[in-house]
């Protein structure tokens, strides 16, 4: 097992290097300097002032030097300081946003599993039935509806019309004055819509995958055998088939990390949630090179970790993997 882990970690090194190289290249494709935005078109700004600020940020060095310096600093987890005028370390800025994004993503993964797995099984046991087709349409509607539009509609309905839920943000204005129980409730209320929206889009992938897996497994010989032995259909499905169909889902969970992180840009913007997606988008629009590179690298590394976790749990469940 440790050998497997070691081998698995070793293969991550070239991936990490590739990730940094692509991140760096992407950022340096672009014209324009990060200082442009800060300087705005203010008549009181002189050209000398502009040059002064560019030197200050080290933008006058050749590209490969900039990459090499960046890589050396990455090795000790130094992502540099943001070009924004707060000049804070990128790692701090991302660090304070990351827990929010991860929390919402974990919650929505849990919700996806809770809904998609039963849906997938039910569809698979009745393939091409009316129920199967209705489910198909339902989950694909979730995938097909533009996130921000649905979000806005739900905000109007639940936030303004019915006044059941807060419209945006993570906590209410009077959060600090609430008791611990009410604080928790306040957070839950704020999370309902964002988690719902972010999970709705992911339903299709998971439930279709589950359905396909299930169909595949049901066709296997041992299921036929089980049926032939006269076992009840419920037992066949839930005891024998389900266990085998669930295993690949672990891998899919690992693979769904980048999609969820990418999707966070949209719902964090519309729900005013200060997470990684919103930070990254603001970084991109203000040409905050260190922040954008940091966001790309950290986003990719999170995926690597997700996949690693998935592989490890898979290896624990299924010993054959370790030998391979």
């Amino acid at each position, binding site marked *: 097992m440790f050998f497997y882990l070691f081998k698995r970690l070793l293969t991550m090194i070239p991936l990490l290097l590739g990730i940094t190289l692509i991140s760096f290249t992407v950022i340096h494709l672009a014209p324009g300097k990060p200082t442009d935005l800060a300087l705005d078109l203010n*008549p*009181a700004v002189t050209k000398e002032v502009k040059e002064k600020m560019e030197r200050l940020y080290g933008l006058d060095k050749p590209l490969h030097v900039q990459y090499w310096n960046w890589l050396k600093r990455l090795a000790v987890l130094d992502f540099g300081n943001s070009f924004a005028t707060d000049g804070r370390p990128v790692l701090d800025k991302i660090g304070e946003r990351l827990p929010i994004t991860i929390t919402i993503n974990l919650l929505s993964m849990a919700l996806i599993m809770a809904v998609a797995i039963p849906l997938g099984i039910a569809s698979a046991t009745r393939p091409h039935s009316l129920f199967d087709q209705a489910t198909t349409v339902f989950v694909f509607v979730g995938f097909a509806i533009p996130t921000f539009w649905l979000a806005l509609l739900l905000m109007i309905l639940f936030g*303004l*019309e019915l006044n059941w839920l807060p419209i945006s943000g993570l906590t209410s204005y009077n959060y600090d004055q609430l008791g611990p129980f009410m604080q928790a409730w306040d957070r839950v209320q704020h999370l309902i819509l964002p988690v719902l929206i972010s999970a709705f889009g992911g339903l299709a992938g998971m439930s279709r995958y589950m359905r396909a897996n299930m169909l595949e497994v049901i066709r296997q010989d041992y299921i036929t055998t089980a049926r032939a032995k006269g076992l009840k259909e419920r037992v066949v499905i839930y005891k024998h088939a389900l266990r085998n169909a669930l295993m690949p889902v672990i891998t899919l969970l690992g693979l769904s990390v980048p999609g969820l992180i990418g999707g966070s840009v949209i719902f964090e*913007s519309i729900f005013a949630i200060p997470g990684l997606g919103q930070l990254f988008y603001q970084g991109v629009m203000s040409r905050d090179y260190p922040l954008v590179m940091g966001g790309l690298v950290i986003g990719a590394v999170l995926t690597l970790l997700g996949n690693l976790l998935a592989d490890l749990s898979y290896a624990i469940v299924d010993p054959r993997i370790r030998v391979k």
Partner: protein
Amino acid sequence: MNSNTSCPGLPPLKILLVVLCLFLATACQDTEPPPPQISGPVEPAYGDAIVSGTIGDASNLIPYIGSDVSSSEVTGLVFDGLVKLDKNLEIEPNLAESWEISEDGLTITFHLRQGVKWHDGEPFTAQDCLFTYQFVTDPDTPTPYAADLMQVETAQVLDPYTFRVKYKRPFSRALYAWLGDIVPRHLLEGVNVRESPLARRPIGTGPYKFETWKAGSSIQLKYNPDYFRGRPYLDRYVIKVIPDSATMFLELKAGSIDQMGLSPLQYARQTDSKEFKARFNKYCYLASSYLYLGYNLRNRLFQDKRVRQGLSHAINREEIIDGVLMGYGRPATGGFKPGTWACDPNIKPVTFDQDKARELLAQAGWKDTDQDGVLDKDGIPLAFTIVTNQGNSQRLKTAIIIQERFKEVGVKVKIRAVEWSALLKEFIDKQNFEATIMGWTLPLDPDPFAVWHSSKTEPGGLNFIGYHNEEVDRLILSARETFDQEKRKAAYYRFQEIIHEEQPYNFLYVPDALPVVASRIHGIDPAPAGIGYNLIKWFVPKQLQKYHYQP
């Protein structure tokens, strides 16, 4: 083949559609009841808070460094300048009680207010003023606002409450530079400004003290009980970050924010219900900015002023103001704010006159000889590209309207919207454009040196259209070096005549600012300076207070 109606996929869709329509049909009811009406005069009272919505988070709360709107909103309340602007945009005392300007106009001596304390209890003195000057002009301070204070030759502390600055040349806008915030010497001296904790927890002398900052979501300020102009009535000032404009408007209607800037469409179409008007007060006043269509004068197409005049007559400014601003704005006549002393009221906006436009273009030699609908001269068609920044819907709509009007007089225009910083870097700074629609924020002092003087035409300069006129240069410099407002006014009037005649810019419009504030907040008094100038006098009558705090 199966028809659509027998498909089991459709019923859920139909239901969805019905549900959606239901949402939307009933979407205009607001949830919060309007505040009760109070009869009789309202008594100012301490307490309550105002929550202001903003698109982006603040970046750095040290004055001069964070140049974004949210940072300025906070520093404006936490810090003070030596002087400030009153409701009519005239200079009045602030941290400086009084000042003298020497006969030759080179020296200003400020007499400072005594007994003012920083929020951490340290006394405010002339040393802080001297330090502010050194701080802003220090090459290691990353600020875009150093240009005005760079004009200072020497600054000295005469005694703890007297501060003197001496200029190299007379500099008419010298006093305006001291509108800038004074920063605390005892906290910033000898500190690497990039690592100063003040960036996250500012300490100033202003009406509000910094309280908390939740990154990316809100900043909260608390009243300063010892403020030298008197304690502000509102206990808290809160800035709430909501990146999406549609969400922000919903939050306003749900009552979780009290103040925001409306778009012209929201102002005109979405805020007229009786209920909305009971819960909110809308304000409308001229903003300090203008939009223009600028021509690159190095380009052969635009060197003849008759072409620029002709194009100017082809633009229907009223139509743009109606269509883009829903009528909330007025035509721009030149680079000064209408109604201020520098602006010549005798100069009228260029009229919409297509015949005159055609005539002027024809005089300049542009005729449609090949009958293709586009004017030409020496085989070259009168066609060019207007660049503007992407993401600003008002500018883009303006460009689309102008494109259509130009087409009608035989001028072919393409529109290109480019991301802001790429626009500046690749087009404007390199002077690699034909025409551009952009805006200027009007500085508090009208000095047009940076935009119109010929010394600013080098790459990266703000006179990027390459305007060069010796008389204009002379007028700008003479106005810059006198403190006599009448002399400056005469120079600026002449300057406007020349610009109006030559049309290097086709001036388009000055928009209105359209803020909205919850109606429980009283004491707002709209003036030429807008509404924010007397914030410390805003209050909520006792019976209307919404947020309550333990003292």
